[in-house]
């Protein structure tokens, strides 16, 4: 036979569950009417009035005996809370200041970063300019050299001009010489012809004499 474990509480739990539900329904049902509300309200009012009276008497007695009451302690505690609130408000103000400082610092840092950047740019520009200046100086020197060379070339040119002139003059002389040569040639030819003619004449004369 399989042994089935007996749970004596299962049924008890179900029964109490049902009983509780029914009891609650019954009690809430009984109280669900205007009379109960009015009665409760009246009881609460009476209870409150009674407590007020007790408190008032307590305060009066304590006052006579010069003993601090709960309301005195309450007032002191309230002051502490107020101080705490002020500190809290101050803390928030400090936050705001911190935030403002952070913002300002951030702005300053950005500004400084920009300044550094500009300085760097200026430096690189300056380096570039120095380099360019150096190059310009070099170019200037080259130019001066060129100019010198150019002036030398001009002088050379002038010399060439002179030479050309002289050459032209030489050419002229040459041409004159040519002309002279030609003339000389002609003269020579003429003299040759004359000599020949004279020789012939002489020959003729000599022949005639014979």
């Amino acid at each position: 036979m399989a042994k089935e474990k007996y749970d004596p509480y299962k049924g008890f739990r179900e029964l109490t569950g049902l009983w509780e539900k029914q009891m609650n329904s019954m009690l809430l049902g009984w109280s669900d009417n205007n009379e109960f509300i009015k009665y409760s309200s009246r009881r609460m009012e009476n209870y409150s009035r009674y407590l007020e009276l007790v408190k008032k008497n307590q305060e009066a007695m304590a006052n006579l005996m010069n003993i601090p009451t709960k309301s005195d302690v309450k007032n002191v505690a309230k002051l502490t809370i107020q101080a705490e609130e002020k500190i809290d408000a101050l803390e928030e103000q400090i936050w705001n200041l911190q935030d403002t400082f952070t913002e300002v610092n951030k702005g300053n840092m950005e500004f400084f970063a920009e300044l550094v950047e500009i300085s760097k740019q200026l430096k690189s520009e300056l380096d570039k300019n120095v380099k360019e200046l150096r190059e310009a100086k070099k170019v200037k020197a080259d130019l001066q050299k060129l100019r010198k060379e150019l002036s030398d070339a001009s002088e050379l040119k002038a010399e060439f001009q002179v030479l050309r002139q002289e050459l032209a003059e030489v050419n002229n002389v040459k041409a004159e010489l040519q002309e002279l040569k030609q003339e000389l040639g002609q003269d020579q030819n003429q003299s040759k012809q004359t000599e020949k003619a004279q020789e012939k004449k002489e020959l003729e004369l000599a022949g005639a004499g014979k």
Partner: protein
Amino acid sequence: MAVESPVKVPVLDYEKEMKRWNHVYKILSEGDPKIEHSPRQLVWRKNKTTLWHYAAEEKKYSTPLFFVYSLLNKPYILDISPDTSVIKGLTKRGYDVYLLDWGEPGPEDADISFDTYILDYLEKGVKRALRHSGAEDISVVGYCLGGTIASIFASITDLPIKNLVVATVPIDYSVGIAPDKWLEGLQKGELSVDRFVDVYGTVPPEWVNVMFRSLAPVNVSPYVGLLTRAHDSRYVDKWRRMDKWLNDVTPFAGAAFKQMFGDLMKDNKLAKGELVIGGKHADLSNIDCSFLAISSANDSLIAEGQSLPVMDLISSEDKTYKLVEAGHVSLALSGMFAPIVDEWLCERSGKIGE
């Protein structure tokens, strides 16, 4: 050959019974269990209110969570045991969690109203959490009356609320679980708590407990339930924690108590859009962030009809409503709350590295 008897005779399990009664004896003789919190860091303290930070185990989301709990109970229900802790469940899933613990108001706090709680404590707490986390926005999670407070806060604040999650939240007080005549008496002014509250200043926890008990005067099932399952050590441990929390009711600041009964319960100003907090009109239609409302199907304190109207009152385009099979407290106690919230929030929270 043995013949099997047709009548099954139940056998009493002596071992189980010994365990059961040992546990019952232990509960009766020992004090309350010690509740150990998940690792946390104090961020801010003002009066009785404390803001705690629970760092994510491995941070996945840049949008932190800010928990607002009810004024009626203590918020350690959200971190009641390592196995089922809502907060641990969320830090494990990669969220940074902040919890605003309202603390226990004393007689000097009688003048604290919803206005003070929302503007001087909640709004400042959220500011602190935003500053502490360095996040651009935050998700606010409100539980029970904390959900009502979170909704009012979200409707009036300029702070960057990315997501709003409310669980078992009472918004519409024209309905409720209390008998109709009680509600009617309250609405007609036949039942007023003003004088009673004025006498006390701060309503003592015993009276807050009476208020809860009046909704279910006969309450034996938790004890019968304990007796039934007292052999189970895990159940007993859970029960003890729950019992400690249930009896650990907080006092209620008088001005806020009167406001809850007057503005919310009697005049239903929040649902009607007539509530004014710190001179600002707390109109729920101002809420336009992503919104999730969770209701418990077996809630014995907040009826679904009290939560559901919020879906029509807000103007969020991205809004989700979830009805889960749980009770008012078991939603947090069973550990199911964290996965539900995570499932919805993971897509709506900023991710690390994005």
